[in-house]
């Protein structure tokens, strides 16, 4: 947990040092904290401050391997244990192929990780072979770990008799004797398992077989930058949302264009023009109006004219014309009647009264006979009042006619006002109907016939306009909706363009910081790798430069610059031999297993020697010695080359030998100096009570002879090494020496040609019966023995001690 906090702090510091904009820094840190925080910050909320790191709580446990016990697992039948010193140091477990040494290695690996790359890539039948067929009953593997604190942790996986599924194991974990309830491994052994403390030949081969990205993935996790990668993934996910939206918008843009292109509609033309050639530059407000509006486009005027035509009915001019005609008729009817005459008479009297009022009494201006005077006036006024009353009907009829006429003329004007603009607007869309109305309008007067003709023409236009309007509406319904949707999407994209830009910048800045942190952190491991390669390369002409983690995403890879005989090469793997590749794999993976951040203070290496040539084995011994100064190194190996190099070079190591008898009985024994081991066996057999004498003599002689041979050969090898003799020449000389005398000659003189001087030399050593003993062991293995077994052992021991 505190690792993550440290990383967070470092990230924040580096971003600030690099003068990254505050908003970008905030976004990167939010992405580090998690998806929810990122979403919140994008919504505009503040970046929550993380609780301050619980000041370097613990440095994590230091885990050593104390023992592994296996029963009925793989090559192991009855319970077999490998007990180790739980602390730094080198342990070599040697065993022939088939001796079950790898089964021990796998037991450790499987108990702790429930997996083994050795199996993961093999067919199921291989995996099924986990059950040892010599064993019946319960099966179990148990690995005991010792923590730096002194606590012990035992991980036990057991299977009841008859269980065939490897994964069906019962897991129990005990810490200092107390079983943990969940059966899970302690947290430090977490599932991510990035510091896998196991190196098998398969791991080493990954250098050759893995794709560049796989190699990267195998190495990168030790750097502990996974939270940064996760943050980057979160930013990328957000960015992708935006990108997807932009991409979709562009696709819709093109689709819209082609759809509008097929429409014969002025609005489509208009929309095409407003959309333009680039989605990002479309005129959104105008498009929004166009999309929603029936009142948009070049025929908008026509449309509104048509709509007005529909909304405004014609004034009832027909009724007015009727009423006018009636008023006219009523007036005409009253014209010849008494009332009409009286009406005119009243007017005459009213005129005379007006004259009398203005001029006073005088002669009548009409008849010139009578006199207009006060007497007359009284009678005349009475008469006028009577006449007025009598002619009221005529007056009313007149007034009505006038009103109607005025009204009709007004209405006619209205009709023109309504119709004329509509004709202008719609003549393009509805030419026929407009022409008809125009004609009718031209001949429209205040009579019923012309009105009826007009009304018919108008009704035709009215219906046609309504139909045209409806068609126009329907035709735009879908394209308009599509356009509206696009405008909405485009509006969102436009509104969030800043966010996209911010995300892009955030990713770029995070990437830059990540690259730098990766390079800085990897440099330590890379330097170790280069150092290990220097030790391992020995006589190799392949040099390795600075190893780097390069590329990102799908192009991530481990960059391994190599040179052959000093000149640069492009591919490391192409120029290396199998042995070199193994050595290089070790150089690459050992720092991973031994990284300081790993809780595991042990590393298990399965068969690193493989196809290494002898000089590389010397380098390997040196590498292991160095690593073992601070780490517990457990190496499994299938031959004696590594133990030989360790003995010869004086590397401090605990060497064990694994053998397997019939029925998968596996024994693990300390491997002392070979000569001492042979002598111990000789002594053990010599005192064993239940071996027949003849066999006993044979065996004791054999062990004594082997002790002499081993001593002589180790001595020869050591001296020749010191003299600089090439490995293969040493091996050839040793292989050519068959008898014990030949080998002693090599060991003593370093020269097979001096065989004749051997016995003389042995006699001068001061070891009693030295020559007799040599001759006795040589003969005895073929059945002829003339020396007591006890004497033979004692004498051989003395001789071996002198020769060493």
């Amino acid at each position, binding site marked *: 947990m505190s690792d993550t906090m440290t990383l967070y702090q470092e990230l924040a510091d580096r971003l600030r040092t690099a003068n990254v904009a505050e908003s970008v820094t905030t976004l990167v840190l939010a992405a580090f904290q998690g998806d929810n925080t990122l979403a919140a910050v994008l919504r505009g909320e503040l970046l929550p401050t993380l609780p301050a790191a619980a000041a370097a709580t613990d440095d994590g446990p230091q885990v050593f391997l104390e023992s592994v016990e296996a029963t009925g697992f793989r090559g192991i039948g009855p319970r077999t244990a490998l007990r180790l010193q739980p602390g730094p140091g080198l342990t070599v477990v*040697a*065993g*022939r*192929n*088939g*001796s079950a040494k790898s089964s021990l290695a796998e037991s450790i690996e499987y108990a702790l990780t429930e997996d083994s790359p050795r199996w993961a890539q093999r067919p199921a039948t291989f995996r099924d072979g986990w059950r040892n067929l010599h064993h019946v009953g319960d099966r179990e593997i148990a690995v005991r770990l010792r923590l730096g604190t002194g606590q012990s942790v035992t991980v036990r996986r057991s299977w009841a008799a008859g269980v065939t599924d490897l994964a069906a194991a019962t897991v129990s974990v005990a810490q200092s004797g107390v079983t943990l309830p969940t059966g899970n491994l302690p947290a430090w052994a977490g599932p991510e398992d990035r510091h896998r403390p196991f190196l098998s030949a398969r791991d080493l081969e990954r250098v050759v077989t893995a794709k560049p990205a796989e190699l990267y993935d195998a190495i990168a996790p030790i750097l502990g930058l996974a939270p940064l990668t996760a943050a980057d993934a979160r930013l990328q996910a957000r960015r992708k949302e935006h990108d997807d939206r932009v991409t979709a918008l562009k696709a819709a843009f093109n689709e819209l264009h082609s759809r509008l292109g097929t429409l014969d509609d002025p609005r489509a033309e208009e929309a095409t023009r407003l959309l333009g050639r680039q989605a990002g530059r479309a005129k959104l407000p105008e498009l929004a109006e166009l999309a929603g509006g029936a009142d948009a486009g070049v025929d908008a005027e026509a449309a509104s004219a048509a709509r007005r035509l529909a909304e405004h009915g014609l004034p009832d001019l027909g009724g007015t014309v009727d009423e006018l005609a009636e008023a006219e008729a009523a007036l005409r009817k009253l014209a010849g009647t008494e009332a009409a005459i009286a009406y005119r008479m009243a007017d005459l009297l009213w005129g005379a009264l007006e004259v009398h009022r203005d001029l006073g009494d005088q002669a009548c201006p009409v008849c010139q006979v009578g006199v207009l005077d006060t007497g007359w006036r009284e009678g005349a006024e009475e008469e006028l009042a009577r006449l007025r009353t009598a002619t009221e009907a005529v007056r009313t009829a007149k007034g009505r006619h006038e009103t109607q006429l005025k009204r009709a003329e007004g209405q006619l004007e209205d009709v023109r006002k309504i119709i004329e603009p509509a004709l202008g607007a719609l003549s393009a869309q509805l030419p026929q109907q407009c022409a008809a109305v125009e004609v009718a309008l031209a001949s429209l007067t205040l009579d019923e016939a012309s009105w009826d003709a007009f009304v018919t023409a108008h009704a035709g236009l009215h219906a046609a306009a309504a139909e045209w309007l409806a068609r126009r509406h329907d035709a735009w319904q879908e394209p308009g909706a599509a356009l509206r949707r696009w405008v909405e999407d485009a509006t969102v994209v436009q509104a969030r363009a800043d966010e996209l830009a911010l995300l892009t910048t955030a990713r770029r800045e995070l990437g830059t910081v990540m690259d730098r942190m990766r390079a800085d952190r990897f440099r330590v491991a890379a330097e170790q790798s280069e150092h290990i390669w220097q030790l391992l390369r020995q006589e190799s002409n392949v040099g390795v430069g600075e190893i780097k983690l390069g590329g990102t995403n799908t192009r991530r890879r481990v960059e391994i610059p190599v040179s052959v005989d000093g000149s640069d090469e492009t591919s490391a793997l192409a120029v290396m031999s199998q042995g070199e590749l193994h050595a290089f794999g070790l150089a690459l993976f050992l720092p991973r297993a031994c990284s300081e951040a790993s809780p595991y203070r042990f590393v298990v290496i399965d068969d690193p020697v493989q196809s290494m040539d002898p000089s590389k084995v010397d380098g390997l011994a040196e590498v292991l010695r160095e690593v073992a100064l601070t780490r517990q190194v457990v190496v499994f190996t*299938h*031959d*004696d*080359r590594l133990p*030989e190099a360790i003995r010869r070079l004086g590397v401090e190591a605990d060497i064990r*030998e694994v*053998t*397997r*008898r*019939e*029925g998968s*009985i596996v*024994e693990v*024994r*300390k*491997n*002392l100096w*070979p000569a001492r*081991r*042979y002598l*111990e*066996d000789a*002594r*053990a*057999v010599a*005192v*064993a009570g239940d*071996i*027949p004498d*003849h*066999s006993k003599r*044979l*065996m004791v002689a*054999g*062990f004594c002879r*082997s002790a002499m*041979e*081993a001593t002589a*050969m180790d001595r020869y*090898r050591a001296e020749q090494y010191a003299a600089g003799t090439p490995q293969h020449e040493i*091996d050839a000389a*040793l292989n050519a020496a068959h008898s014990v005398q030949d080998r002693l000659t090599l060991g003593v003189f370093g020269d097979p040609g001096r065989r004749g001087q051997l016995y003389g030399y042995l006699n001068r050593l001061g070891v009693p019966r030295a020559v007799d003993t040599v001759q006795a062991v040589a003969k005895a*293995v*073929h*059945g002829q023995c003339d020396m007591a077994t006890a004497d033979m052992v004692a004498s051989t021991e003395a001789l071996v001690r002198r020769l060493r």
Partner: protein
Amino acid sequence: MSECLETADRLLTSVIRGARGAWPRACAWLLRYELEAAMDRYWQRVCPEIGQARAQRPKLLLLTHYASPEIGHRTGYLWWALSRAGHHHCYELGVTAAELTRLRAELTDVVALLDSREVSSC
């Protein structure tokens, strides 16, 4: 079964107290001794002069001629395999139980062949 074979079989399946795990070599010596004894018995019957020789190689090579090419090859291969297993070699660890079991089965066959081989003219 001879004493050496019995001892060899015991080594294959059980532990000698105090021994340090070099039993596969001891087992090989015992088996090789058994083979040499069978050869000696054969030569004693067929041609005692050859049997007197101390070196094993001529005895092996002549088997091809005297007994049969098959017996000669099989005996030769077995003897060399057991010799190799019994000697201390640089870098090589002791042979495995499986390998010894196979060699032991072969030994039984070869010994039977040698013992049943009729004496032809010397």
